[in-house]
């Protein structure tokens, strides 16, 4: 695993893609990416966020992340407004998504009223359901207990789960709670054992989409931007032909392709964070930008899976273009 996505000479393609992605954000366009055999190709740009290669039998869903409901500081005094804006855009998609996934930090301080408000807001989404995974902000006082009172998806009292939709196997994981002092958080033995059993039931030709809050590759260890036992989880995914890992936590779009596994972090809907290890900042705290710039750094992601294709089409769209 690389310790930094920008530090490895073999990652020039990703650097270029990041640069293009940033350009797209600032120019108000969305780039449609497809990943084939680890080589990203731009299919084209749109101004509306509609994939140019939409197919009738494709599965489309939306990823949102890091809503931090309860946050009221200068970096974004109105996180509810930001989430509502995203909800309006998702509800206005010409082809409604099958569902929405939220990759964690639903709340800011794990307070019941924050979970409650978040759940009510997410019910404004005109989709069948919303799948969430917990972030470290959702497990502050009593682990996942408070979170599960509002977001126990399968009623098992567990914060990890899997389900199948349109021939795709989805897995939600919790990688925010299991840690030792001074280390990055991990999935832990119990969850790895569960994942091993879960994947044993899945054909290797089935596309896998994995959700987890903290990136499953190490972006910047001094800030805890990685998962200590990610390598164990990724090794289990190696036999599968198409694996896409969707993460939150770092409030910006970064990608890494490693063999058959494509890993993507998403924008937040609350506030920006520094780039990994950004010089002159020193810590991963909220970054306050001019009010008219904030919406360009927050956003949503549309993901489309086309049957028979290993590559997923991703569109990262800022709230304000």
């Amino acid at each position, binding site marked *: 695993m690389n310790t930094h996505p920008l530090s490895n000479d073999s990652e020039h393609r990703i650097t270029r893609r990041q640069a293009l992605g940033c350009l797209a954000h600032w120019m108000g366009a969305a780039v449609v990416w497809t990943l084939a055999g680890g080589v990203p190709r731009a299919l084209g740009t749109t101004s509306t966020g509609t994939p140019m290669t939409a197919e009738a039998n494709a599965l489309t869903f939306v990823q949102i992340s890091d809503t931090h409901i309860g946050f009221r*500081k*200068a*970096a974004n005094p109105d996180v509810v407004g930001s989430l509502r804006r995203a909800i309006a855009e998702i509800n206005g998609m010409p082809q409604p998504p099958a569902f929405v996934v939220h990759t964690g930090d639903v709340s*800011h*301080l*794990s307070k019941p009223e924050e979970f409650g408000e978040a759940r009510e807001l997410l019910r404004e989404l005109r989709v069948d359901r919303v799948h969430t995974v917990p972030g*470290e*902000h959702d497990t*502050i*006082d009593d682990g996942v207990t408070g979170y599960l009172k509002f977001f126990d998806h399968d009623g098992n009292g567990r914060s990890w789960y899997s389900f199948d939709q349109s021939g795709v196997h989805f897995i939600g994981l919790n990688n925010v709670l299991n*840690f*030792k*002092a*001074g*280390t*990055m*958080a991990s999935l832990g033995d119990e969850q790895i054992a569960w994942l091993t059993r879960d994947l044993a039931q899945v054909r290797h030709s089935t596309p896998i989409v994995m959700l987890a809050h903290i990136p499953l590759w190490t972006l910047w*260890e*001094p*800030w*805890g931007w990685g998962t200590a036992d990610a390598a164990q989880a990724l090794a289990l995914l190696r036999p599968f032909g198409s694996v896409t890992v969707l993460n939150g936590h770092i409030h910006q779009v970064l990608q890494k392709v490693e063999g058959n596994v494509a890993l993507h972090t998403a924008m937040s809907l609350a506030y920006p964070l520094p780039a990994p290890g950004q010089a002159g900042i*020193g*810590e*991963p*705290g*909220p970054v306050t930008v001019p009010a008219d710039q904030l919406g360009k750094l927050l956003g949503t992601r549309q993901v489309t899976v086309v049957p028979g294709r290993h590559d997923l089409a991703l569109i990262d769209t800022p709230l304000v273009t």
Partner: protein
Amino acid sequence: MKYAHLAQRVRECRSLLSQNRGFRIVTVVAAACAALLAVTALVPASAASPQAAIDLGIRQFAFAPQEITVAPGTKIVWINHDEAPHTVVSNDKSFASKGLDTDDKFEHTFEREGDFGYICSVHPFMTGVVHVRKQ
């Protein structure tokens, strides 16, 4: 000068020990050395009288100071100066705060001697330690 004197005494103890003059002397000297070392551990400016409360800041995702030595009975008050929430959770679970938002405080009084490592459970890369030593 006082500290130089203590350091000299410690060196003397080590010298005696290295000469191995018999079990009894070694035992007595070792005990004396331990006492001296305990005193020297208290020497840093952070040492306080048992009644005092010490404010300990949480800034830029770090405990400041990260390491501190206090006398038994000392109360430490952690104050979160960051926009991000943090916690104070001891490794042995003997104390744990709730989530601390900006300007929130958590206090704990250290009654017994020992070394108490702790972390922020939201950001486990943030670590600190409180050494509690009799004066």
